[in-house]
């Protein structure tokens, strides 16, 4: 299992990688959790409702 995990660790296979300062990611992470993901969930649901309404539009020209 550990061996499989090690082989699956893509970072082991790429040279030159370095740790990233967590502070540099914090603003992105906060925006995703507090704004973007809730907005995505909302807009996808809204699109689903809009699609349901448009399914009965007639097309005959």
């Amino acid at each position, binding site marked *: 299992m550990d061996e499989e995990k090690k082989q699956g660790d*893509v970072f082991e*296979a790429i040279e030159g990688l*370095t*740790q990233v300062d967590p502070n540099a990611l914090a603003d992105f992470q906060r*925006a*995703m959790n507090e704004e973007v993901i809730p907005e995505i969930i909302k807009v996808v649901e809204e699109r689903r409702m809009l699609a349901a*309404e448009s399914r009965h539009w007639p097309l005959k020209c």
Partner: protein
Amino acid sequence: MYTWLSLKSSADLAQLESCISQEYGPKRAAEKLAGGISDAVKGVLIERNYVDKDYRSTYYHFYAKKGQHYLPNCVRLHFFDQTVAFDESALKLTCPEGPEHLNDHYYGYMVLRPTGIATIGRTVLSPDVRSGASRYIITANHKVHVLGYRLMIEGFPSMDQHVDISVCAHVACWSILRHYSERYNSYREFLTHDITLMAHQFDPGGLIPSKGLEVSHAERVFQVAGTYPVHVTRDTKKASDPSFYRQLSAYVESGFPLFAAMHKHGHAVAVVGYERRTPVNTQVPGMRYAWDEVQTLAFVDDNNLPYLPVPVTGGAPYSAEDIDAFIVALPEKVFYPADAVDRLAPTLFKLGGVLDLPPGNQTIIRYFITTGSALRHFVRERESEFDPKLVATIMTLPFAQFVWIVEFATELQWAVGQIAARAVIDATASLREVMPLWLMHSRTHALVFNRLTVSLDLQSGIRGLKLADMGHTGFTRMDQNLRPTKTK
């Protein structure tokens, strides 16, 4: 059986009327062609008694059952340039470089059905000879057999609706699915009559299909055909819904033709390409998207020859912004919707401190779907643009089959087909993922994401990579899914 028509200009197409029986509607076909193809077409080979599989599918199931007598065969018109001639006695086509080069001088074909009205059947025309065709068109190679020659034409299929058994929506579905069957070997071919049946749960019989379809019927056609249709509708309650058009543009840029519905016109078309406006240096700050740079969309509309250029606004009888809903027939495994990418893309600027991105308000964003292998191929062909460590990273990351690409370009880079940075998003990601990325890179840095661990522990799932300066001002924009039109 075969007649050759030499043309000095497209106006000479009027001669078709004297060469072809009236039930094939030669006058109307000639008028349409004369108004829609360029003078580069100098020769038309008229092929009579052509057995057209699409017409036959409607003949067997409809026309043969009628009291009025309909012929079983069609006429097919083949279009050539000035170098090709026809030897009538030997039934041979000739061109200066020899018959193996005939294909270089072939511009496609149009089938005429013996139905009296709406006679233009299956047509595959080169965008190069379509007057005003948009710059980028989604195409596939279509095989053509005539006089023992095997020709190939690169284009998008179109036809007129039959009026009595099929309407605009059937034709739009047929065009898209015929493109799929020619372009991808995983999709089978569907004939015109198949499409009319696929739209309903049961065989509606007779003239019922001509009473029109609903958008849901088109969605059903694509489901039955084995695709995974995504149906996106514009929010008409809002004053504007730019995200809708950005998504539309993204799917077309990805090489997926769209079934597009215009509610107020009760009309459906296939969207198969676009043309960008001439780049201008506006110096006006503000984030823009690829859609903002689109001047026209290319429609396959059953009332017109293919590749009809339709302006974004102010067109007659309609504009691209009259599209209210579209269906994109996606392959399986595209789970992360365009709506999510549209929200995520501008948020990626928050990683700009690590990646040295251009300011968001001076950037043009473009996003589209491609495959991981297409991305690798693109990078391999342009290895010299990339730090070898970045090439190795792209070759090593275990991409799922489909990825969303987000490209960021300054106005100056956009004008010359370059970008500043690129993000690779997992198209199989879930909506709630904080880091649905495989990779994001600029010219100086890259962020690499381990999709095995990044959702469990952000810190251990992300690494940085410092990139060497490769001595250029931007990477090549990944414009590869559509065929550039070479106007003739």
